[in-house]
């Protein structure tokens, strides 16, 4: 199976997880976690298999891809937490620091900051160092989730699956509204 085919399957899988997460979140308002999870899985899988190639799915892929590892991993993490898996939440300070750093990163990508940070995501040595830095942070804080995403992203990137830039595997612009929402909930 070629890298392009695997990349396509991974994008579809990521979209299935996100659609499933949305269905799970909505279903969870009326259902207990297990049936809500089953509902989400059915809708997510059904959407990308039954409706593959249709306008809504093609538009979602065009709009949001590359999905990377982080977004679907976060969705699965939240579902797992509701199913009783031990998940350590990110602290408010971690989320705020991430938000600031990520906004600087995006500003750099838009040319507002003279250093092109995104460029480092194409080269193997910076990618290796950044991944190890995430692992070191996870080791120090006892947070397994971030190293898991960083290394999974490095693996996909190394195998030529999905984006040729590591940052696309471990970040996504939808993280901004997600983090802002969580921070706002904690402030209220």
């Amino acid at each position, binding site marked *: 199976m070629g890298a392009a085919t695997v990349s396509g399957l991974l994008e579809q899988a990521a979209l299935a997880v996100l659609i499933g997460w949305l269905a799970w979140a909505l279903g969870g308002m009326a259902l207990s976690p297990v049936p809500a999870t089953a509902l989400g899985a059915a809708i997510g899988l059904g959407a990308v298999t039954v409706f593959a190639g249709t306008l809504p799915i093609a538009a979602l892929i*065009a709009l949001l891809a590359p999905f990377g590892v982080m977004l679907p991993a976060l969705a699965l993490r939240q579902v797992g937490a509701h199913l009783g898996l031990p998940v350590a939440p990110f602290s408010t300070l971690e989320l705020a620091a991430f938000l600031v750093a990520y906004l600087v990163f*995006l500003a750099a990508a838009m*040319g507002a900051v003279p250093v092109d940070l995104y460029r480092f995501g194409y080269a193997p040595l910076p990618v*290796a160092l950044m991944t190890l830095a995430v692992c070191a942070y996870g080791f120090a804080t006892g947070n397994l989730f971030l*190293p898991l995403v960083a290394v999974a992203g490095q693996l996909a990137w190394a195998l*030529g699956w999905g984006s*040729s830039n590591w940052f*696309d595997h471990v970040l996504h612009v939808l993280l901004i509204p997600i983090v802002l929402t969580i921070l706002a909930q904690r402030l209220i």
Partner: protein
Amino acid sequence: MTGAQIAILALAALSVGLGAWTVRRDAPPAWRFAAPVPLVAEGAPAFDTVLDYTAPAGQAHSPGVALGEGGFDILWFEGSQEAQADVDIFAASVTRGDGGWRVGAPRRRVTRAALGAAMEPPQLVVTLGNTIENENASGALYTTAVSVGGWAMASVADVRMGPEGPLGARKLNLSPLLNRSHLVKSPMVEYADGSHALPAYFEMGQMHGVLVRLDARGRVRDAARMDAPGLQPIQPMIVPQDATRAVAFLRDFDAARGRLLISRTTDGGRTWSRVRQTDIPSPSAPVAALSLGGARILAAMNDDPDAPGDLRLSLSEDAGETWRVLHRFRADEGALRYPMLRRLKDDSIVLAYSKGTKRGITAHVFNAAWALQQ
């Protein structure tokens, strides 16, 4: 040590292995341009108009030139209006026969539907724009594709072509902003190792030019910016002088400033000087340029402030510092814009541009003797 920390150590070990593997197999770009082969003015002057096409309706704009055996294809986008949801890529094949140049009937070459279906998984493509030849792969193209919004939301698609249209396609990964806001316009730049780099530009926020290096599989491996705070440099047209030096001419998106922009590299394109204004007038229009060898550059520009619709062919003997006008193509009905210059295999030169303010496409083939005798 907790279970999580043990797992993280295992992940770190895996990461070290992946890092060693990727570093070892990596082939970083070599930053040495292919030295331009001098183009000598010899033989009798020759000039032909090989295409004079007017769209039956709507607009036809932004020609690209894809070289082939025995001739070349001229590609452009056509539809009711630029950036509308009925724009496809059209092409006309130009071949040299016994009686001179012959042009085939224009036909749709890349449709939005076919491009979207060629991606894995299929993606929505709403409109298409500037399209150029992908010189790293036979018969391949780079096209500007929009799935949502306008040009600032565009992506560059690497399109592998078959006889009936796209066989496969994928968007280049050039931005963390949903992979948005990069476009192409100018032909690729050849390197000494036989690879070609892609000039592109970013249209969201602080606009800037980009020189994209690609790996053997056509994936983005590096990207170098041409930037300047306060200016809006787009559509870089890059002309190498030797293995390490090149000049990039850029359009300023802000028409009010009215000047062509320039940037230079002395390290094979790895880094670029801060983009600056030249004295050359420009109505916010892209230029086409072609090396004639060393510091000699042939360019097509809208550089007459009294007739900004005219396209003038000019020669520089000092890598773009000063220019001598060789020939004027007059705009009788609407502006002549978006020139494209390519050198053919027989050392002829093809100049294509849009005419009548995006109403059609004109293409000429001439030789250096004709250009330099003007």
